[in-house]
């Protein structure tokens, strides 16, 4: 059992829900990312998703695109992200996973990527452009190295595919709340509830909801039926607004605390 799986076991025992935050590693630089991780951990975030920037983020809206660009501009590489994550060993309670597109993983070499990530204390990966049909190699390595390969499903996913995704996914199942790209939305789709229940009927694995979640009220609604909630763009908007300001980390922490209390 890796740290992500342990988190869900503990949360379930305490009848609590997972609070997951996405930030783009290296936005605006890796030193800030490290401080943000420490702050988010202090605020009680259960899992921190570190985005590894990619030049062509097909599944992302303008907010995360801009964050990826800032990260690439500051010279962020896979190796540097792993080194930064590794330097946190033993100092945080939150579990770490990475979210990135398939090419940076493929070019790094799948096995080397998984081993290097594990070595840096990272326990899972989410790859938005790697559907379950193409994920065989990564899933096998994940099993071997106790590394969660978190699969995504969407409102357009058929029942047949859903079963396959539920079977292959490890750590948790990422339910994409909307038909679209990442980005904070004022209101959420009405069928999230129904779709999450549909997934939970076929699997005992935790189901967490992401894409579009922007405020404590939405998060609170979602955890009534889901096992956790993922907030990305809304956090990055705060980073964006505070670029170059001393209060950046503190303001992100304040927002995270508000979300934590709602969840």
């Amino acid at each position, binding site marked *: 059992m890796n740290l992500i799986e342990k988190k869900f076991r503990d949360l379930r025992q305490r009848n609590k829900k997972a609070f997951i935050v996405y930030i783009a590693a290296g936005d605006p630089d890796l030193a800030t990312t490290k401080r943000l991780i420490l702050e988010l951990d202090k605020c009680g975030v259960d899992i921190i998703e570190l985005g590894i920037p990619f030049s062509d983020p097909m599944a992302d809206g303008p907010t995360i695109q801009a964050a990826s660009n800032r990260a690439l501009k500051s010279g962020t590489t896979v190796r540097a992200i792993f080194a930064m994550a590794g330097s946190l060993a033993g100092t945080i309670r939150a579990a770490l996973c990475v979210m990135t597109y398939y090419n940076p993983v493929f070019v790094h070499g799948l096995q080397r990527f998984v081993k290097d990530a594990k070595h840096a204390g990272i326990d899972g990966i989410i790859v938005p452009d790697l*559907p379950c049909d*193409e994920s065989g190699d990564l899933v096998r390595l994940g099993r071997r190295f106790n590394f969660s390969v978190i699969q995504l499903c969407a409102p357009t*996913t058929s029942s047949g595919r859903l079963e396959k995704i539920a079977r292959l996914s490890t750590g948790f199942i990422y339910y994409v709340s909307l*038909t679209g790209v990442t980005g904070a939305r004022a209101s959420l789709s009405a069928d999230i509830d129904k779709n999450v229940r549909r997934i939970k009927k076929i699997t005992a694995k935790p189901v967490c909801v992401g894409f579009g979640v922007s405020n404590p009220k939405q998060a609170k609604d979602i955890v009534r039926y889901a096992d956790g909630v993922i907030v990305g763009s809304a956090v990055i908007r705060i980073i964006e607004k505070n670029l170059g300001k001393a209060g950046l980390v503190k303001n992100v922490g304040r927002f995270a605390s508000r979300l934590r209390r709602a969840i």
Partner: protein
Amino acid sequence: MQPDRKGYFGEFGGKFVPETLMAALTELEREYRLARRDRRFKKELAYYLADYAGRPTPLYFARHLTDAMGGARIYLKREDILHTGAHKINNTLGQALLTLRMGKKRIIAETGAGQHGVATATVAALFGLNCDIYMGTEDIARQALNVYRMKLLGARVVPVESGSKTLKDAINEAMRDWVTNVGDTHYIFGTCAGPHPFPEMVREFQSVIGREARRQILGREGRLPDYLVACVGGGSNSIGLFHEFYNDKRVKFVGVEAAGLGIKSGKHAATLTRGHVGIFHGSRSFVLQEDDGQITIAHSISAGLDYPGVGPEHAYYKMTGRARYVPVTDREALEGFQALCNIEGIIPALESSHAVFYALRLAKRLTRRHIIVVSLSGRGDKDLDIVRGALKLG
């Protein structure tokens, strides 16, 4: 060459897209397979290709060019004569008819040079579909005339500001639109790249080029050509010409890539010559990329070749040695452009000019007994501003 069930040509191809799109790709593949066996669909497509687009296009024996080079006999497959000015209409007619079959009301597309955008806007007007075309602002600036043409045809041209502001970013943005509006929208992908079934499907719609050329050259010369030469950006006109000759092992294929300012300059779009295997825009193929897997910004004088990816079937052709891929620089392409203007009175697209240049060089090394067929994929009207900036005439 047919891809396997998962859309792979050897190790290249596949479907690397967000889960949200998987249902749409499955539906598209199903409709496409049904349509291929549907006589009414085939008849309708054949009708539009003939009476609307102007097929078959001639296979023109370029006698003057042949004499000037003093070597192999050069034939030009005249896709430049087609309605809208390039081969792109072969594919957009096919995909628009599929859109109607699927009951979708809106089409979107990416465009680089603007030729695919114009061909998509054209079928949108023809079939009464709503149409948004994504185009990088860099390309909007260098292909202003095509932007105006698309607007005249009733399409909305959406400027793309992200990344290199060229074709690759237009594809990213079109993909994001598709992910959001997949319920009522079909994405008419313009080249033989992207996720399965696009590489196979676009190739099939473009194969009409090779089917005609094969029949025409047999009628004219009584034998198959020695060489087929075509430019490769994403690779749709070249694969359209090559495919029908795949099993004719004595026919050599040459794909001509854009070497921009030179292969060693770092400013080029020679993906198969200089790229590495990676995953980009939905499939596994060759990609111009950095060590860390970030996609490199390509460069070419021709917007249609200015792309850091390439179709997976070309990657397979390269790895198996079925085709050879050669680089031709901006400057050389302009030489090919001028030669065709002066010697044959044909103004070619800058994309096609790359193939023309290589064919001329190849012809010189061969003898009158040899035959070269060149894909003249488009006409050059759209490029006159760029050429005027690059060539000073007396």
